[in-house]
């Protein structure tokens, strides 16, 4: 098996970026024609990678990862820092954090630039290591300064992982309000907005009473297609021939085209004239599990009391509602929604459920074989159920 060096990992990801060039091109075209673009999909399909690749080379991106926004003040700091990166080079920003006596002249000049462009208060926040509780009130000011900056230069605000705050009960960051804050400024200032995240979070942006109702272009991403994997494998094995189509089909059937699992399996198959069978490769990966399956089950149980059981059933291809009394079906529905939002389950098509990570699914059911997605059976639609 080829050793997973940093170079190989980079090559694996780079080739996948190239193979998904069509997705990248769609996104770039959307950004040209719309001021507000959204990208969504199920968990672990590589949304952040595709978007990052589409934005490569651009110097106008303010990227905010809501996974890191632990408080409103921290969100303000993230915005301030990302805005500061538009104004001064990263190295200068890093040096600017040194004590006054240690800063080189380039860093002092950088601080002066930040003070002038953002104001002393926002510049200070950008250079802070973490936000203080007082910084909770600074978010409107930071957004104002960013909006004003967009009058003087191109700005694309990319808010990633829209679903992140909804994963924690009583999370202090209100994504809906953040989007209204961005909308009110975008109506008055010329910046572009790119939102990305799990499909479950799209209603935060585009529901009937949400900030961007009717004002967006959403792109749905799916796992890489057969054609994309074919191109990927051809590039990965070049100049040697790639494995046979039947081998590829068998592998993708086992991995469900899950990007990271498929890449791991392909990495394991490299450097062999005759790669091991897909079943052997996947079996090897499952055996080398450092405890992720156990952790996934534990996570499922913390999300909902039915969580662990549902993940196990769905890993076996059993419908989540089979044998469930009607009176309890709403509870199952809520559990499914929680597990999906957390990324443990995937809803690839209406009424179909799979465990997101195929290695977890295989480890739970104990058999290395393709199974069909679990279907919702005997399920009565509850119009009041919030999905």
């Amino acid at each position, binding site marked *: 098996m080829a050793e997973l060096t940093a170079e190989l990992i980079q090559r694996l990801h780079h080739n996948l970026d190239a193979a998904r060039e069509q997705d990248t091109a769609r996104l770039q075209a959307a950004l040209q*024609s719309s001021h507000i673009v959204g990208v969504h999909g199920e968990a672990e399909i590589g949304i952040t990678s595709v978007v990052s690749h589409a934005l490569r080379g651009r110097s106008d991106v303010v990227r905010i990862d809501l996974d890191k926004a632990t408080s409103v003040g921290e969100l303000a700091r993230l915005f301030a820092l990302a805005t500061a990166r538009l104004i001064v080079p990263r190295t200068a920003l890093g040096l600017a954090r040194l004590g006054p006596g240690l800063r080189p002249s380039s860093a002092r000049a950088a601080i002066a630039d930040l003070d002038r462009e953002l104001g002393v208060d926002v510049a200070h926040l950008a250079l802070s290591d973490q936000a203080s509780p007082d910084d909770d009130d600074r978010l409107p000011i930071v957004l104002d300064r960013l909006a004003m900056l967009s009058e003087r230069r191109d700005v694309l605000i990319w808010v990633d992982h829209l679903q992140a705050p909804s994963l924690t009960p009583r999370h202090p960051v209100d994504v809906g309000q*953040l989007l*209204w*804050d961005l909308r*009110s400024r975008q*109506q008055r200032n010329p910046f572009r907005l790119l939102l990305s995240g799990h499909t479950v979070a799209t209603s935060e942006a585009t529901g009937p009473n949400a900030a961007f*109702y*009717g*004002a967006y272009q*959403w792109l749905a991403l799916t796992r890489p297609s057969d054609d994309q994997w074919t191109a990927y494998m051809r590039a990965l094995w070049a100049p040697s021939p790639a494995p046979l189509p039947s081998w590829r089909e068998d592998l993708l059937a086992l991995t469900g085209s899950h990007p990271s699992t498929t890449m791991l399996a392909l990495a394991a198959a490299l450097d062999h004239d005759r790669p091991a069978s897909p079943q052997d490769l996947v079996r090897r990966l499952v055996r080398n599990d450092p405890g992720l399956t156990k952790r996934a089950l534990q996570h499922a149980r913390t999300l909902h009391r039915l969580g662990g059981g549902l993940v196990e059933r769905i890993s076996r291809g059993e419908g989540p509602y089979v044998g469930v009394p009607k009176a309890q079906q709403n509870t199952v529905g809520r559990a499914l929604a929680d597990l999906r939002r957390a990324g443990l389950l995937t809803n690839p098509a209406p009424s179909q459920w799979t465990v997101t990570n195929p290695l977890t699914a295989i480890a739970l059911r104990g058999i290395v074989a393709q199974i069909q997605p679990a279907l919702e059976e005997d399920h009565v639609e509850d119009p009041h159920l919030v999905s």
Partner: protein
Amino acid sequence: HHVLLLEERRIGKTSIIRAVLDRLRSVGGVGLDIDLSDSRFESPEDLAFEIAAMARAAAVGVRERGFLRRQGAKATKAAAGVTHVAAEIATTLGVDGAGDIKNASKIFDAVQAQIGDIDTAARPKLSSVLAALELAAQFSDVPIIVFLDECQRLLEWDPVAQQDLAFAMRRTDSNLVFVFAGSNERALTQLFAEGMPLHREGLRRPVSPILVDDWTPALIERFAGLGIRATPQTILTILQASGGHPERTMTVCAIARTWAEDTGQDDLNDDLIQRAITDAKAQNSWPS
């Protein structure tokens, strides 16, 4: 006259009002553009603070004081001319007595106290700030338009905010005009319903559709500015597809422009327009 714009979302309400405010400012008027959806607004005091800050930035009050200094005796006479109005308003600001009312300087001191350089920790009263604006508008005879976008948020606050706004709206001859708009039709209908403080007959104004005769020359001119030739028939094709909806129309035009530039065409032919329409209809914002 005060106005409520209550229309479907994405029809262009904010754009229309902003264009009006821009025109007002170009002729020396004052336009205050406030979006209540911003998270900085959590109470009537937050709104008052923002109105005061915007008025200060627009030199409201300062300008009128300067005018009065230059005019001298004439100014006092002018001030006396609006005494009957000023007296009522000035009381709100703590300026009492006939003698004080005739002294315009004291009135403007009171105005400045509300919208001058105030402590950022101060929590001004909405009624006082609105009274100051009204006084300033009366003396200067220059209209002040306060645009409250996403005004349905007023329902979330202490009802005193609605009462203060309603009080400021009571005179039909005032130079202080309020424009309201919002995205939540149900909440807006509730806010301006009969029996509510802000209810007024004739407040609601419909947003008229843009006529083909207005679309056509404007879009032809816009395309020409980009070096692209469009004909009235081309524009009509776009409008038929978009139903004349402003955003959908502009989406088709934007895509058509991109196609024209990418293919090096300087003429919007039928094929290009149809492709642009197809692409626009594929967007989520286009209703199915």
